[in-house]
């Protein structure tokens, strides 16, 4: 295995994604600024203005237009990127389904943020969870390094002819978007070799007109959507292939999920995003005390990696699933619902409870995570669940 020497930079999550986008030779960026994503597209626009990046930046009047422009450019054969957050993603909602339905391999950086009302600019997962069934591949980064690495991998995954689906790379708003961390970046030519120019199968072309997104009545619509459904599920295989290739040039190992200290774990926390790092740090401490705890972090949330999850859980007896968003009125919140659905198929013996945390940027502390581990250990020990859904750090 050849590991290419890389230089280390201090970048925020937003800057790391922008840097990756520059290296990926993106052709078109259409975006609208929104906190906490603004810097992401601001830096990209600077690259384009300075001549460091040969791309078209389309300033649009809204996120709905941003995604519409991205779809048009993607259909014309361009490599396309956009970034958004919160209300911006919500405003795109309609176009997200069109991007996936038309099989546009767009990559989007999302600095996850709470949804109004009440107005809040801070980090939680309400925005992406609100669009979780939009047919996009959805990846969550734990730290700034992962934000960089996944952005590069996202284009390769999206543009694979077996996939041709849009991908969102999610970073926790402020916690990652505005945090400077060490980032080992690849050389430009290494990225260029990993990600050659896009080779679209069909493109729209004024000299050779075709119809895209034509009306599809009850006689065909179902089949089109069924193909999309199957393709998304089967993309896990491509995602894994891409991570293997990326590992060979970066030395960094990715997969659809990460199992941390899970070998003999009896109790575990499952979560996505930056909280996984804090959970691993707490688990490390508890392991030193001899407690058998581990962490499962999903990198890929859609498609949901069911079989990998079952494998990662090993012999775990109790599991706390952490959700940073409400699914109002649902029995469990989004991530936990998916975990329980998976366990229903494969492992009904694991005791699961759902912890809602960190809404609107409320910090989750190592002490709180320790508390969740201790409760999970107690459940593993006694087999008795006290509550199915708990709320961490909320004043009732």
């Amino acid at each position: 295995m050849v590991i290419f020497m890389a230089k280390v930079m201090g970048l925020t999550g937003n800057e790391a994604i922008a840097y990756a986008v520059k290296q990926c030779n993106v052709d078109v960026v259409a975006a609208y600024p929104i906190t906490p994503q603004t810097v992401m597209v601001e830096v990209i626009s600077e690259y384009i203005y300075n001549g460091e990046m040969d791309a078209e930046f389309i300033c649009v009047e809204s996120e709905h237009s941003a995604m519409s422009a991205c779809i048009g450019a993607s259909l014309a054969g361009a490599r396309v990127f956009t970034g958004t957050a919160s209300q911006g993603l919500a405003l795109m909602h309609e176009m997200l389904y069109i991007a996936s339905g038309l099989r546009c391999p767009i990559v989007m950086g999302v600095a996850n943020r709470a949804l109004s009302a009440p107005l809040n600019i801070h980090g939680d997962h309400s925005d992406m969870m609100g669009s979780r069934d939009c047919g996009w591949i959805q990846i969550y980064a734990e730290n700034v390094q992962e934000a960089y690495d996944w952005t590069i991998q996202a284009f390769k995954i999206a543009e694979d002819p077996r996939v041709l689906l849009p991908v969102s790379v999610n970073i926790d708003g402020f916690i990652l978007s505005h945090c400077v961390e060490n980032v080992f970046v690849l050389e430009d030519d290494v990225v260029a070799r990993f990600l050659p120019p896009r080779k679209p199968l069909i493109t729209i072309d004024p000299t050779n007109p075709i119809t895209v997104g034509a009306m599809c009545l009850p006689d065909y619509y179902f089949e089109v959507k069924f193909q999309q459904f199957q393709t998304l599920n089967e993309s896990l295989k491509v995602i894994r292939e891409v991570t293997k290739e990326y590992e060979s040039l970066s030395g960094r190992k990715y997969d659809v999920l990460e199992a941390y200290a899970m070998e003999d774990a009896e109790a575990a926390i499952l979560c996505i995003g930056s909280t996984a790092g804090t959970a691993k740090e707490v688990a490390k401490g508890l392991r030193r005390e001899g407690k058998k705890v581990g962490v499962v972090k999903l990198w890929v949330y859609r498609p949901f990696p069911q079989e990998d999850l079952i494998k990662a859980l090993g012999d775990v007896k109790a599991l706390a699933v952490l959700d940073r968003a409400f699914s109002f009125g649902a029995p469990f919140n989004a991530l936990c619902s998916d975990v329980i659905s998976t366990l229903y198929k494969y492992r009904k013996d694991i005791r699961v409870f759902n912890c809602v945390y960190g809404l609107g940027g409320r910090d989750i502390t190592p002490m709180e995570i320790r508390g969740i581990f201790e409760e999970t250990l107690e459940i593993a020990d006694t087999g008795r669940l006290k509550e199915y859904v708990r709320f961490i750090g909320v004043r009732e």
Partner: protein
Amino acid sequence: MVLVEVRWHGRGGQGIVTVSRILAQAALLDGKYAQSFPEFGPERRGAPVTGYTRISDEPILIHSQIYNPNIVVVVDPTLIGKVDVIRGLSPKGLVVAHASRGPDELKKILGVSDVSVYTVDAMKIALEVLGRPIYNTAMLGALLKAYPLVTMDSLVKVIRERFPGAVGEKNVAAIKRAYEEAIGVE
């Protein structure tokens, strides 16, 4: 050095995010791992703000906020008495403050015993060296005097990269002078 957490106190517009980031970048050059993040939220010029830096020999996994810093750096001298700058400061911690008064006096004002206190008149240095009342970078020199969190070489390199030309050299001079002039009590 396992993990050192620093909290910066200043006011919006004084370059708190900038110095926190410069410190992190210098740590990176030293081959360490670092995080630098602002107090999350809207920026408000003139209002009290905080910035945070984590530095470690090992990769930093934690992504929660900093509640018990090892070091507090007070960039704006008018904050003392108005903002609880020693909130959560860990035992045997360190306060590095921009103050015209000496560390003994400041220690009494802060009412701390198990904490080292360093002071420097950063405004005086900024006016004399930079010719402008911008004293955030000088506080990096005082911090290094109190605790060798990063090497002076790396810090100077980052400053020169961040502020090319004469501005960078003046900031380097301000940092070095603050390093000389900072005095402390254990």
